[in-house]
């Protein structure tokens, strides 16, 4: 099998160098166009933009003022979805905001108290997965979710409906801000998911179908304190 040294040297030779570059080439004038980085123009209407983009993809959006209102909104949605059981990230801020035990449904938390196999089985059976988004991207209506021990990937993937909650302060104008934040992390999460609307496909005669493998519905509650 070829070694790393050989593989890289082979590329250097193809580029007309005897030895591979060991110092990074100047990374100048790359990245997004200059005008894009001045994002203030989207700042004042970021929530409206997020809402419009999410709704354009069949998502639902609720803007609430207080944690109590967020809980009420969630209760209404769970009733509408006829959900009796949900799976929920074991996330301190999420718990503080919606107080899951007050929701009137059976809540399973994604943590080590339940064995892995059992957790996945639950995710596969319950109607709703509840998460706390790390960021929202206004320009595309995107939720950004970081994987952590108590923030399982399956929660936003297996149930038919994914409901995410976040504060309005976590909504940023464009992807640039999120990527800057990710870059500055001391340790990156093992997985970062950018979720924009439901799972979809147009592979059958270009006919749009929703919920091919993942959720049919992606609904979002934003708390604007």
């Amino acid at each position, binding site marked *: 099998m070829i070694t790393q040294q050989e*593989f*890289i040297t082979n590329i250097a030779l193809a580029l007309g160098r005897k030895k591979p570059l060991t110092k990074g080439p100047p*990374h100048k004038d790359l990245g997004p166009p200059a005008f894009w980085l001045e994002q203030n123009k989207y700042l004042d209407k970021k929530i409206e933009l997020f809402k419009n983009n999410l709704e354009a993809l069949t998502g639902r959006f609720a803007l609430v003022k207080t944690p109590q209102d967020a809980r009420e909104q969630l209760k209404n949605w769970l009733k509408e979805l006829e959900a009796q059981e949900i799976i929920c990230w074991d996330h301190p801020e999420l718990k503080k905001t919606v107080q899951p035990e007050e929701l009137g449904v059976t809540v399973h938390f994604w943590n080590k108290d339940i064995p892995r196999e059992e957790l996945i089985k639950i995710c596969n059976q319950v109607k709703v997965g509840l998460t706390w988004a790390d960021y929202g991207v206004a320009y595309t209506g995107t939720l950004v979710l970081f994987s952590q021990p108590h923030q399982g990937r399956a929660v936003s993937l297996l149930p038919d409906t994914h409901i995410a909650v976040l504060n309005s302060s976590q909504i940023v104008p464009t992807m640039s801000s999120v*990527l800057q934040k990710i*870059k500055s992390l001391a340790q990156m999460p093992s997985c970062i998911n950018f979720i*924009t609307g439901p799972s979809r496909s147009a592979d059958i005669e*270009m006919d749009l179908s929703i919920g091919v493998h993942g959720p049919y519905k992606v609904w979002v509650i934003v708390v604007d304190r």
Partner: protein
Amino acid sequence: MSSVPTKHLRQRALEGLNNSQMRAATRKVVDRLDNGKREASKQLEQWEEWRVQGAKIRQHVIENLDYYLNQLIENVKKSGGHVHLASKGQDAAGIIRDICLQHNAKLVVKSKSMVTEEIRLNKALEEAGIVVQETDLAEYIIALAGEPPSHIIVPSMHKNRYQIAELFSKVAGYQLETDTPTLTAFARKVLRNKYLEAQVGITGCNFAIAESGSITTVTNEGNARMCTTFPKVHIAVMGMERVLPTFEDFEVLLALLPRSATGQKITSYVSVFNGPRKKGEIDGAEEFHLVIVDNNRSKILADPQFRDALRCTRCGACFNVCPVYRQIGGHAYGSVYGGPIGSVITPLLEEDYNFWGELPFASTLCGACTMTCPVKIPLHDLLIKLRNKKVTKGFTSGAEKTVFKIWRRFYQGSGTYRFAMKSAYYLQKPLVRKGYIKFGPPPLSAWTNSRYFPAIAKKSFKEEWNKNH
């Protein structure tokens, strides 16, 4: 390549032309995708500036690939991933097969990846007794049909809903309705169980980010997320050129790729993987492997004439505007990568300028592909250069060589040229109908079999000019 066609391009194109279902489906798909792209690129401010940046970034990576690939490898290792390097396609397939065997994998779930088609991965795994489950809806459909992809973004576009229902009904053991929700729901149910059963998940890699050692997937269905969340092992396979220096550069390509491919601002899912799951995490793969494939890419890199082709992000936009692809459909190309970019990279990747060297001739050189390419690959220039390569390597037919030899003789002097043109004008007379030769004798028939030959004018341009000026 997954299989080398036994028929000549001319025959394959003819079959494409005679397949009215394929042609109707192709037209529908390419129109929809191309219109979507036009709309989406109008909505993003300053599309041309984004394109310029995209081209610059990809070119910068290609020219410094030794540095960025090394940086990527080191960073993947730092985050706990294993890196495997493969010079040839079969090496890559062997590496992946061995990882699967080490884990006693019986079932492997795969999300869509063109490079795995290129290295004939499924065949290698199946020969080792491993069941390979394609999970992209289109890939699932064509795997059931046992047919090759007909479009890079919509590989199953040649299958209509009745055929799909038939394929699914065989799996189900009962007759399924043909509406889209029923068909999708069936695939969802079958595949959901496979994700939870499989020991290994295999994905492609749309872009790797060197500064962090991240691997990214850009998908709509969510199957790449499924393939990486439940199986114990995640293997990502990438062509070695798919690196980006930084997250800033990722933002640019992420703005260009979905808009160019399907007209979306962004796909439903974009996942960024940094090695295996971390301590304390409950889901996600425990083991992460990255397989980096050369398979003659370094030869393309070594030839400055063709290096630009490595900028490609596999968006398929060039397929959708190509007047040839529109007519003959995807299967006529016979290669894993179809359309204009496929005609460029297939002869290069296969190092075959004879058989695969025919592909660059299936082009009108109109340049629509170059105009639409989000990373500004000069596709039609590359097509001409490849035609030239075929000729200089001596792979032209005897008849064609003779014709050009004769042509050269007459074209060399103005007297002989004038004489030849005058004679041809009189000789052609019995064949001309309304200004065209519609049916010529051999060797002219090679032209007139597929299009009319414009008749030679009575007066040359020079004679006309002299008369009027």
